[in-house]
């Protein structure tokens, strides 16, 4: 098949040092993929028109699943028949995206045979995105994938594919087993993922520590972020080595030669001011530490999180549609996250029940909480309010009581009142 359409605009994107997706796609086109040749053609047309050329997605999918496939059709199919259908298949990635090449090739093989050979590695939610399938290929692709032990991720008003940072696999700071939590929740909630039944989408993202390398606090309805309750572990010899310039600052994040100034860079930038460095000894008042990670980040050989680890659970992050973007808010300051995660799953069940009952159509849980008040959600969870849930208490004086909280109740007799107070 090879290149079908001239692409003078796109050719400009073959220049420059960063890898070129155009060059890559051309290679696939040259290897015979009409979809790729036509994709280039249609994209060139979009570059000329400054408008996309895909139709609004149609409803396509695989039997028994309410999601996992996004329909897509070209709005200029006559010009580019190879992309007339260009559906995506969301394949659930393995937790934290390590791959054995052998296993990854299973997918590539299926996709080379039955699809466009185009991919997003990975989608923003975390899935392996197979980009560009014809409708008739969807069932066979699904059948082959599952046979090889792969399954689809989420889409629509369903649980979306959970995602996590690499955590304990390669990071010394992971306070929870992000991969196991991610895998366990994915398995536990297969039904919620594949059969949309909610007001809107729901996402889990799991980070091993407050650095939040999977951006869970910004991008997931439920953020699970590792933390600890005891003291930061200090190796004073290593502190001295940092001070002496023997170890580069921030694990070499600015290059090998850069020396740390323990007082200025660590102690003075600690947001709580709970550190001190006197007589060559670093001290932390752990009671006042908010576990922000800054000092640990700057001296990874000297400082480590504590050992009484668990997670902070935050709820409600989302992009701006409709009520404006939200970050997740603290709902459970600390929870031990240990297999089989029963306590956490009970919280999840209560959360979904409440949202299912109260959420409006296309209302993310964060928006439901905004509309009904955090307290209403906490009531449903049976949680007591704690100051850790807020940055600050309310500044307005508008708060409610229930009748039983106020002596004498709400029902008063105007006659009685008027006996004391003439009209």
């Amino acid at each position, binding site marked *: 098949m090879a290149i079908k359409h001239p692409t003078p605009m*796109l050719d*400009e994107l073959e220049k420059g040092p960063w*890898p*070129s*997706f155009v060059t*890559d796609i051309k290679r696939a086109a040259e290897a015979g993929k009409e979809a790729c040749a036509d994709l280039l053609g249609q*994209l060139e047309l*979009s*570059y000329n028109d400054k*408008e*996309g050329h*895909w139709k609004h997605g149609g409803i396509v999918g695989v039997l*028994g699943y309410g999601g996992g496939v996004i329909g*897509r059709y070209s709005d200029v199919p006559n010009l580019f028949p190879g992309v007339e259908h260009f559906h995506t298949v969301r394949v659930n990635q*393995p*937790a*934290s*995206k*390590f*791959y*054995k*090449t052998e*296993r*990854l090739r299973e997918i590539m093989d299926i*996709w080379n045979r039955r699809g466009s*050979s185009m991919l*997003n*590695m990975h989608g923003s939610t975390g899935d392996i995105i197979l980009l560009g399938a014809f409708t008739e290929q969807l069932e066979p692709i699904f059948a082959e994938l599952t046979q090889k032990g*792969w*399954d689809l991720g989420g889409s629509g008003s369903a649980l979306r594919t959970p995602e996590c940072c690499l955590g*304990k*696999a*390669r*990071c*010394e700071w992971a306070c929870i087993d992000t991969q196991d939590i991610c895998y366990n929740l994915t398995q536990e909630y*297969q039904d919620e993922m594949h059969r949309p039944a909610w007001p809107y989408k729901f996402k889990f993202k799991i980070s091993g520590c407050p650095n*939040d*390398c999977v*951006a869970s*606090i*910004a*991008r997931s309805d439920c953020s699970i972020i590792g933390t600890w309750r005891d003291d930061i572990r200090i190796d004073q010899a290593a502190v001295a080595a940092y001070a002496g310039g023997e170890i580069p600052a921030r*694990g070499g*994040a*600015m*290059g*090998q030669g850069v020396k740390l100034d323990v007082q200025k*860079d660590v102690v003075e*930038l600690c947001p709580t001011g709970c550190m001190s460095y006197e007589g060559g000894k670093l001290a932390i008042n752990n009671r006042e530490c908010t576990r922000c*990670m*800054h000092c640990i*980040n700057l001296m*990874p050989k000297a400082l480590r999180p504590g050992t009484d680890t668990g997670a902070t659970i935050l709820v409600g992050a989302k*992009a*701006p*549609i409709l*009520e*404006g*973007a939200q*970050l997740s808010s603290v709902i459970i300051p600390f929870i031990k996250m240990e297999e089989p995660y029963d306590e956490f799953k009970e919280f999840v069940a209560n959360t979904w029940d409440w949202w299912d009952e109260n959420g409006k159509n296309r209302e993310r849980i964060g928006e439901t909480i905004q509309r009904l008040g955090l307290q209403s959600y906490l009531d449903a969870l049976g949680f007591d309010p704690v100051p850790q849930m807020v940055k600050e208490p309310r500044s307005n004086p508008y708060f409610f009581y229930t009748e039983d909280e106020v002596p004498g109740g709400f029902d008063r007799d105007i006659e009685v009142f008027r006996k004391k107070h003439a009209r």
Partner: protein
Amino acid sequence: MAEMVANRITDIGPPKYDEMWPEIIKNNYGKWLHHEILEPGVLVHVAESGDKLYTVRCGATRLMTTHMVEDYCKIADEFCGGYFRFTTRNNVEFMVTSTEKLEGLKKALAAAGNMPIGGTGHSVTNIVHTQGWVHCHTPAIDASGPVKSVMDALFDYFTSMKLPAQVRIALACCLNMCGAVHCSDIAILGVHRKPPVIEHSHLDKMCEIPTTIASCPTAAIKPSKVDDFKSVAVNADRCMYCGNCYTMCPAMPLADADGDGIAIMVGGKVSNSKCMPKFSKLAIPYIPNEPPRWESTVKAITTILEAYVSGAKRYERIGEWIERIGWERFFDVTGFEFTKRHIDDYRFAATTWRTSTQFKW
């Protein structure tokens, strides 16, 4: 059909994670002691056991073909025992267990030509982005094209670690903001600027009118009869081009060559390190679409980065730098125009006004 269902495998979920681990990770899972960045893009992690794991991070395009994946697989087979991974920002990471293998790996990557090493520490790492004109139906801009153009211009910041702190750039091709554009140091956001054009002749067939009306956050949509068709009307004065109606109703497309373009937002972050996570704030409301190389967008971003490099203190993320010097000074040092669009008028607008005499001239 019934047979087919009977034979079907469903709800098996993804393969279990540990199947994907190289030996060294199996052995040291949860037992890592510390790490160091040896040079841009090259990390070493040291385990309690004394094992050392060397990681090389390569910039990747995210939108890629199976050919590219095969290239990665080959390198992983040759140097990494058949394992590799993708990062949460769509970079590729190869892991080896000795400095000898590391040298070989680095040479092979250099030879490949499209696997630049970098993205660690105080660098500009890969741009998290969305689909743009390559796949989605609602984009105001392309994704991969602007990303390539920006990364070419910032390539030196990817392969070095000379910034005051990490700089995370994200792109989303419409207000749906698939990604973390709302919390990025620099965000490239596709924006429409025209209300939907309405296909009255087909709207009632293609869409549910009540749902369509309900979808609009500003209540700009009203039912309307046009040429005997049951349809809707949009009050252009109230429309903010969010595209939510189009999500619900294909008879209301927004895309328009003259209307669409890019907004730049700045100063967001995600990590809890030092300061709490922050939203990105509007820096430039509109830059026209300039395919294929989006020169003005690239220039805006290099302007921000240069001002940041020359003004920020070490360890200050872009948002921290701006808050220290003040937004009025940010507009000064970048030369960006402050317009009425920068003044919030959405739900929490009042919380963003300056309720103090503290400001700079």
